[in-house]
């Protein structure tokens, strides 16, 4: 009934014999190359036996991610419940803010700068406001997940010095709450599209595109938050870069609006990663002509790989993060 804990993830055989929860932490050598890990397994009931089988089939990190889903959701619930706890209209604020923002941009850019949006997919003219809204949702998902990740890790510092739990749990919890917000924005947008009759089968891509975007954004968020824990300047640099990148993403204008005299600018706006998602969402929701299974599949795979890679890096760089926060 006893297992030594010297190796990284503990083999499935080890864990199979353990009753209750076993913490496996590894001995550290000279350098930082062998960080300790905590692997938990509960082998006393059926659910746990299933989890154990799962553990044998999956790499340690994914298993741990699944094992800690309760903790992630506990943090998500905390953030969800406290986000607008003291306000009268509560979560309505989560829509008022972006919609007000949207209204200002729509008026300024379509009236003052006479910006033009492409043709709607249903062939009934164009709507700059909806084009903007669509790009807006995608951009907000990206930018907010970055900022929330950094803030969430910072705020967890004192707790990480008192209780042992993976530092990514509160970060992912806050990301889940942001996705609730994204879905609220999305549903308002969908109603709007339905009202003007711009509906197509390409909408089926939307959930996958959003998931891919969320995974990619969270990957960037995880990397930035661990960097930010060490170097406090990161969050300010991110602020500057984000405000520049916002104008270099086809949210306020379509790529076609960039004159041919600026080929480098055009190439950057067209191919920088955030544009992939913005343009795909435009294609799926607004122009109803894409982005196609291949692109969606690629974005999804890219998102998953980026997320797991970033989580791996995060996990290995935040083991002593409580000490520096």
């Amino acid at each position, binding site marked *: *009934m*006893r*297992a*030594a*804990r*010297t190796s990284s993830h503990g083999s499935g055989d080890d864990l199979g014999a353990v009753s*209750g*929860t*076993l*913490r496996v*932490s*590894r*001995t*550290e050598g000279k350098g930082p190359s062998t*960080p*300790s890990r*905590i692997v*938990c397994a*509960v082998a006393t009931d059926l659910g746990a036996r299933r989890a154990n089988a799962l553990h044998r089939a999956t790499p340690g990190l994914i298993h741990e991610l699944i094992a800690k889903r*309760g*903790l992630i*959701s*506990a*943090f998500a*619930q*905390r953030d969800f*419940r*406290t986000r607008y*706890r*003291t306000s009268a209209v509560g979560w309505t604020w989560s829509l008022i803010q972006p919609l007000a923002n949207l209204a200002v941009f729509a008026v300024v850019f379509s009236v003052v700068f006479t910006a033009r949006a492409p043709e709607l997919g249903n062939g009934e003219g164009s709507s700059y406001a909806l084009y903007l809204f669509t790009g807006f949702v995608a951009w907000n998902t990206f930018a907010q997940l970055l900022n929330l990740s950094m803030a969430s890790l910072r705020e967890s510092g004192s*707790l*990480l*010095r*008192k*209780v*042992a*739990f993976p530092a990514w749990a509160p970060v992912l919890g806050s990301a889940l709450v942001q996705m609730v917000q994204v879905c609220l924005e999305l549903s308002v947008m969908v109603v709007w599209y339905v009202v003007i009759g711009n509906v197509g089968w390409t909408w089926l891509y939307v959930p996958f595109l959003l998931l891919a975007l969320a995974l990619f954004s969270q990957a960037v968020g995880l990397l930035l938050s661990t960097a930010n824990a*060490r*170097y*406090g*300047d*990161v969050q300010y*640099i991110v602020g500057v870069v984000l405000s520049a990148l916002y104008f270099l993403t086809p949210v306020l204008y379509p790529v076609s609006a960039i004159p041919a005299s600026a080929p480098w600018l055009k190439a950057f706006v067209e191919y920088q990663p955030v544009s992939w998602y913005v343009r795909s969402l435009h294609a799926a929701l607004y122009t109803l002509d894409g982005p196609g299974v291949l692109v969606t599949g690629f974005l999804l795979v890219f998102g998953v790989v980026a997320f797991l890679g970033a989580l791996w890096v995060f996990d290995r760089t935040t*083991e*002593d993060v*409580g*000490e*520096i*926060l």
Partner: protein
Amino acid sequence: MSHPGEAAVELRGVGKRFRRHQDRRGTLKELIVRGRAKQTQDFWAVRNIDLRIPKGSVYGLVGHNGSGKSTLLKVMAGIYRPNEGSVAVDGRLAALIELGAGFHPELTGRENVRLNGSILGLSRREIDGAIGEIIDFSGLGDFIDEPVKNYSSGMYVRLGFSVAVHMKPDVLLVDEVIAVGDEDFQRKCFDHLYKLRKAGRTIVIVSHATTLIASLCDEVAWLDHGSARGIGRAQAVVDDYLTSVNSGEDAPLRKDGPEYAAHRTGSGEVRISSVEVLGADGAPVAACVSGEPLRIRLAYHANERVVDPVFALAIRHESGPVVTAVSTRITGDDVPEVDGAGRLDYLQSPCRLNPGTYQIDVSVLESSGTHALDAWTSAADLVVRQARGLHRGGLISLDDGFEAPVTHVEPAARD
């Protein structure tokens, strides 16, 4: 559940190092401008710790502030990763480092129980199963559905403790947190700890309450500057620790070695071999208490037979003044003769010296009282500690006081 032979927690050569930066959080500028070779001062909070905590035992960690007790507990809890060595924990572990860790002020008590429980590692099902019991144990009643920001600090820790003890851990780590809440709740906490102990769970306690540690624990480890100075039976280790704490108080004052040879004169027929301050039980103490009996024992060795010697003793305050100087001749406690080893006690009952540090001079004179056989200046230090309550000022407490006051005295008419 209990397997007496097995270890619940085993530490092998554990060391934890901390970095001492001016500002521990770096900036990008430092990374870029100075590179990674930034000068950092490291210090080891604990090092080379080998501990074996048997299953079903109650284990105590004692030591002064900064000795590494809490760091070691956090290493066991997995909050800190050891830089050296390994930690093995068998079974589920719960650590009470801070009660109500992660409580959110805006959430209700009930919501916080769920949050705190999840953070401490309970599954949702376990929380569902225990939440009623947790709320009962906390004794918060209707307040459980109020936001915890409206709680008193006592209510806060009661709720935190209730969650923590309902984790049903195999190993419970407790860091100085039991001293919370009112007496009623404290009793509840201790009852619960005893219950856990009876159920064969392992408990590791860090505390400055040495009497509690001595009575509750089976074994104790005494940490001193990050290393284990004593490991063993609770009472024995606690006694060693306390002795060290007490002697530590006057250690810097003690004079040793050749330095005091200069303080020693006399022809040497009799030598005083030691001067000790004794407690009520006759064992040497580091300090005596003002108002309680003071006993100073002189041990001597007479190299030849000396008839009618005079022993003298003086107590000087560290600032210089001699507070008292007596001899066996003055007090009439004549010593007929000395030959070989012997001893003589000086008694001041009660001790009239006020709190402070004093030095003891001793001497042995031949019967005329003019020639010193042995004269030893600053033979020992005497630390007098304050008894409870107020004490008088000055060097000594005389048997003095005031008479009943006479009030409303008519002023004498002036000429």
